């Protein structure tokens, strides 16, 4: 199954990255994740980021830790920390490359729930939120088109404010 999964990803040109607290996963799963990321490292057709054992709050906290390490190493000063620097330390930023942004334009939540449930709290600030009653196994092309239609009809300013640019 693991081999089939990696082969499928490679055939589709998909680059896999996994974010979340891997320390809470079984060691065998950690190894599988690492192997899959390594095997798909050079793919570029689609970037697939899987959030497993992921918490939006912990993402923010671990970004703080990384910044504190940089401060400790004299790579930056505490007063230099701003939104941009902070965003660069989030797990999704590490998973994004130069060609893509770590903030989703569209966030789809299935199963009829109307909340983020601790997912991408920072990154979803200006994301179009689409909530559907359809359960995930039944989510298909029709539901995806509905989400796209809702997205394209919105007037989006991406958090542009009078003085600051959106991050």
């Amino acid at each position, binding site marked *: 199954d693991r081999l089939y999964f990696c082969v499928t990803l490679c055939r589709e040109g998909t680059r896999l990255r996994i974010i979340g607290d*891997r*320390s809470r996963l079984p*060691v065998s799963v*950690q190894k599988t994740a690492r192997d899959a990321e390594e095997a798909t490292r050079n793919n570029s057709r689609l970037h697939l980021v899987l959030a497993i054992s992921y918490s*939006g*709050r*912990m993402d*923010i*906290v671990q*970004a*703080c*830790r990384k*910044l*504190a*390490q940089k*401060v*400790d190493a004299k790579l930056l000063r*505490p*007063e230099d*920390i*701003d*939104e941009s*620097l*902070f*965003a660069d330390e989030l797990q999704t930023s590490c998973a994004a490359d130069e060609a893509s942004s770590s903030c989703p334009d569209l966030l789809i939540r299935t199963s009829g729930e*109307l*909340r*983020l*449930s*601790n997912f991408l*709290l*920072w990154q*979803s*600030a*200006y*994301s*179009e*939120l*689409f*909530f559907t009653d359809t359960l995930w196994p039944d989510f298909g092309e029709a539901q995806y088109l509905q989400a796209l239609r*809702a997205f394209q009809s*919105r*007037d*989006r*300013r991406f*958090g542009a*404010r*009078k003085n*600051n640019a959106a*991050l």
Partner: protein
Amino acid sequence: MSLPSMIIKLTLGLLWCIIHLAISLLSLCSHLIFNLECSLISSGLLWKYRNLQLGRLKYLAIVVDSREAKNTVKINQLLYWLKTLGVKYVCLYDIDGVLKKLFAPGMNGSRDNNPGDYLDASANIKALDCCQKQMTIECISGSDGKEGIAKAANLLCSSYLNGDSYTQENVKSEENVKSEENVENEPVFTETDMASALKSIGCAGPEPDLLLVYGPARCHLGFPTWRLRYTEIMHMGPLKSMKYGAIVKAFHNYSKKHQNYGK
């Protein structure tokens, strides 16, 4: 262009128009039904909306698009409706701080209610009295959102640099087992530390149970991310066409929700 291809092109164009018209009609009918339902709710004719159970709704947040937040008449009307419905704590947010300026003259600190436990002296709170139903209003803006998190990180890093210690955790993973030295020197902030830092800089607050979004975009426009973990989010449309019945319906739908709160 040959005749058959012209016919095909016209036929496809006609089909597109018919489909577009059908979808527009469906959308119009849906809109009319919604307006009718809101009117019936407002008039009290729909039985199931008569007795709202707001026991679970302790903290309500309202996100307003800054362009629409300047409509003070609508904002005051909205607050009046919320007061009559029995809402005790409302957090108003718009990214540009229009609402903060709107309520700034009347702001005073309130430490009488429980929400005051979350806030320090710099928080913008106002207690409104109307018809013996006091409602606490908190006004925040984009500076309390991502900027607040960045400032809290600044504070945590400064404290760490000054030698303040934080709770040590045993981070068990293959990577960290290989380099124990790194684990010992690694700053280990926790969610509690971040929450305390946010409180120190005046960006703390209760997590809203329900967040109503007024505006053209179905997004929370940078509402403080730390407080949005398990908040129900409902898009209410433009502020200028807000309806009392729509708010009642949103509250009713919220009262029927079941949350595990991450457990």
